[in-house]
């Protein structure tokens, strides 16, 4: 159902973008860039998605329940945040793992911390992309100012 909702939202946005592009030249440029993205990301997407499924399968259910389950509280939040930082790969890997962990019994608060920490500080993303464009100083400052955010988000989720 989520997939249908997301697809409809994105189709509407794509139609809007198409409408706004107006000229055939602009549309052709956008299509060319789209083809390029498919070419660059397609193979990676296939491999990443399959490995995400394999990782989700390898998750040890009992440990997930014990360390990230409903009784784990703030410890689970902290652990989730740490795991988020070290999860390699793109969005599909972390989300597939999160989905696998949900099935295995991880709590919503630990997952909020996990996804937030991954989004903000995933090492592969920071090292391969952010470092090149924004530099060490910016990354350090950003980490200093925002490192508590996944913990805050996880702690707030504990209340719900």
């Amino acid at each position, binding site marked *: 159902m989520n997939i249908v909702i997301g697809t409809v939202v*994105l189709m509407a946005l794509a139609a809007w973008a198409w409408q706004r592009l107006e000229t055939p030249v602009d549309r052709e440029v956008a299509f060319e860039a789209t083809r390029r993205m498919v070419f660059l990301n397609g193979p990676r997407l296939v491999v990443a998605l399959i490995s995400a499924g394999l990782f989700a399968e390898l998750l040890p259910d009992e440990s997930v329940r014990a360390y990230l389950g409903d009784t784990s509280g703030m410890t689970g939040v902290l652990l989730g945040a740490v795991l988020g930082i070290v999860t390699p790969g793109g969005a599909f890997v972390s989300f597939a793992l999160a989905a696998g962990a949900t099935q295995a019994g991880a709590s919503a608060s630990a997952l909020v911390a996990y996804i937030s920490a991954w989004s903000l500080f995933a090492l592969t993303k920071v090292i*391969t992309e952010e470092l090149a*464009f924004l530099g060490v100083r*910016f990354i350090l400052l950003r980490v200093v100012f925002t490192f508590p955010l996944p913990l805050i988000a996880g702690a707030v989720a504990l209340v719900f």
Partner: protein
Amino acid sequence: MKAGKSAGRSRAEEPAGRTSPFDGSFFILGCIATGAALGVACAEGPVRVLEIALSYLGFLALLSPKVLCGFFIAASVPILIPREALTRWVGGESGARGLVVACLAGALVPGGPSMIFPLAAGFRAAGASLAVLITFVTAWSLYGINRTVIWEMSFLYIDFVLLRVLICLPLPLLAGWFVARVTR
């Protein structure tokens, strides 16, 4: 408007970093995938590996319209909103208004890290403050529209996604406000 569009077009034609799908990071991904496949094969047999691979390929087929639309939107935005205009918009604002603009831009500009980080570097060159930059990167990280709609909503339940986004909504502004206070 016309001049802005042609500027946007020249931007869209620039190569976006990677030029081949099979670079170093793809190789690392391949190694990770192989390791995971071996792990599952040892634990549950090679048939299970095949089952998972097929079911996730089916999942990808299901996601593909959404992913293609997302790519098209990400490809259109640099043409519709030239980078120069966006940079003036975010880089030129300051104070509380600047933080709100940066937060909105981070949430709504589509694209992955290879698009967002160069954009942030452009904002910095245009004079954006550290508070504005951190707000922008934090908002994009926590609830950038691309990742949330294409990926997070595909894998996780919508009530969970909404809860997480709702909780995270004020955090980029909070961080930006804190940075502005400390660095003043």
